[in-house]
């Protein structure tokens, strides 16, 4: 594949360019890619040709497009910016134009690349240092002398932040409640019972009081039975209904308590 890829703006080896594109996931953003591309110029980052670099990058994006490789939005934003920079660098400056000059923009990009490279070098030097637990060591054995023991409560900043984050994302300050999809609240069952009780003066099976839509699925049905039953107990306690069950596990019947 990639045999037609002969035009390599700024890249000596077509396969290198190919590898760059295939590897695009391995780059940590457009600046990282630019830094990698800039190495092909084999010069000090301070003497880099930003125009050349911009062309290399645009070539890269163009090739990614022909290979139908989707680039993340920030790569495309950088491409647009570099295209703009390129035009500023190539065209004679327009005195009426506002904003920074092409040279200023190029200088800043060079600075960014140099700074990123410097931070990478610094990171490498840092990680290459003698390190605690690798090259030098702290006391291996905890001391166990004396009698007094103090209880220390351990909590890190992260625990604190996470606790707060947990609270604040929890339903926006309302007391925590489970998501109730298949649960008929007792309050709802009670409300319903009170409303329809007048229409059923005689003994009626509890099952018949289940609301529409709560009789089908077993989970919903169970919940509705339980809540409705609890509601009838409450109404019985208040003296509004009477309950009756012929035998253990037999259907439960209820009726409105006859007025004395």
């Amino acid at each position, binding site marked *: 594949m990639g045999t037609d890829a002969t035009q390599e703006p700024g890249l000596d080896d077509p396969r290198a360019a190919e590898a760059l594109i295939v590897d695009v996931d391995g780059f940590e953003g457009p600046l990282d890619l630019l830094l990698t591309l800039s190495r092909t110029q084999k010069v000090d980052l301070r003497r880099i040709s930003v125009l050349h670099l911009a062309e290399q990058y645009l070539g890269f994006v163009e090739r990614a497009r022909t290979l139908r490789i989707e680039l993340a939005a920030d790569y495309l934003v950088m491409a647009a910016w570099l295209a703009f920079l390129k035009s500023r660098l190539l065209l004679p400056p327009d005195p009426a134009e506002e904003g920074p000059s092409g040279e200023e923009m190029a200088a800043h990009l060079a600075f960014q690349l140099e700074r990123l490279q410097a931070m990478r070098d610094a990171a490498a030097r840092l990680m290459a240092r003698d390190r605690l637990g690798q090259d030098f*060591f*702290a*006391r*291996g*054995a*905890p*001391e*166990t*002398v*004396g*009698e*007094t*023991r*103090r*209880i*220390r*409560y*351990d*909590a*890190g*900043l*992260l*625990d*604190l*932040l*996470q*606790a*707060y*984050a*947990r*609270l*604040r*994302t*929890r*339903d*926006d*300050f*309302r*007391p*925590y409640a489970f998501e109730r999809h298949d649960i008929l609240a007792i309050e709802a069952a009670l409300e319903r019972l009170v409303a329809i009780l007048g229409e059923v003066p005689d003994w009626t099976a509890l099952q018949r009081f289940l609301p529409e839509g709560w009789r089908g699925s077993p989970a919903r049905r169970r919940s509705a039975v339980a809540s409705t039953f609890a509601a009838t107990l409450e109404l019985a306690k208040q003296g509004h209904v009477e309950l009756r069950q012929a035998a253990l596990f037999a259907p439960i019947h209820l009726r409105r308590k006859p007025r004395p």
Partner: protein
Amino acid sequence: MSTEPDPPLFSAPPMPEQERMVEAMLFAAPAPLSVAELARRMPHGCDPAEALMHLRSRYAGRGVTLVRVGDGWAMRTAPDLGWLMQSERVETRKLSRAAIETLAIIAYHQPVTRAEIEEIRGVAVSRGTVDLLLELEWVRLGRRRMTPGRPVTFVVTEAFLDHFGLESARDLPGLAELRAAGLLDSRPPPGQGQAVDDDEDATPHGQSELFED
């Protein structure tokens, strides 16, 4: 045991160097080390037993001494100085979820009343939780709120900032920042996004009072 003045090539390191090695190993080891273990780690031809004797006399009468423990050797602080080490031996316990949440609310919303803490947590705050935080000196009483009942408020202390490595409570990240830092796992419930994002609005007593100076 070598006694020559000029050690031949590939000979063991000089005795002061062997002493250094033994010293470092005993210091770093979690348990006493035997002469055989020391010898196994050291270059060929070393004499850890002799190095131990030198080291032992070097540490005689110092704040740290070389002691024999069964077959092994270990460094221990001098027994007469044990009283200095007392605060070293601390038993670490994890703060309960209730306590850490209460603490977080106080830190973010201070000065905050108990009722406000309960409103945010959605459950009653047990006396023990606040007592523990007071006892740890991470929390103290602030001014009374000038509202009916004049409830006491809670604020965090210097010791709290110290423990959590904060320069001030206003340096605690806001909710949007927590999210940006990847500390918010759960997405806000649908339709609540704005309210949750808007940190300042959601904290009438808290942040604004605390963070504006």
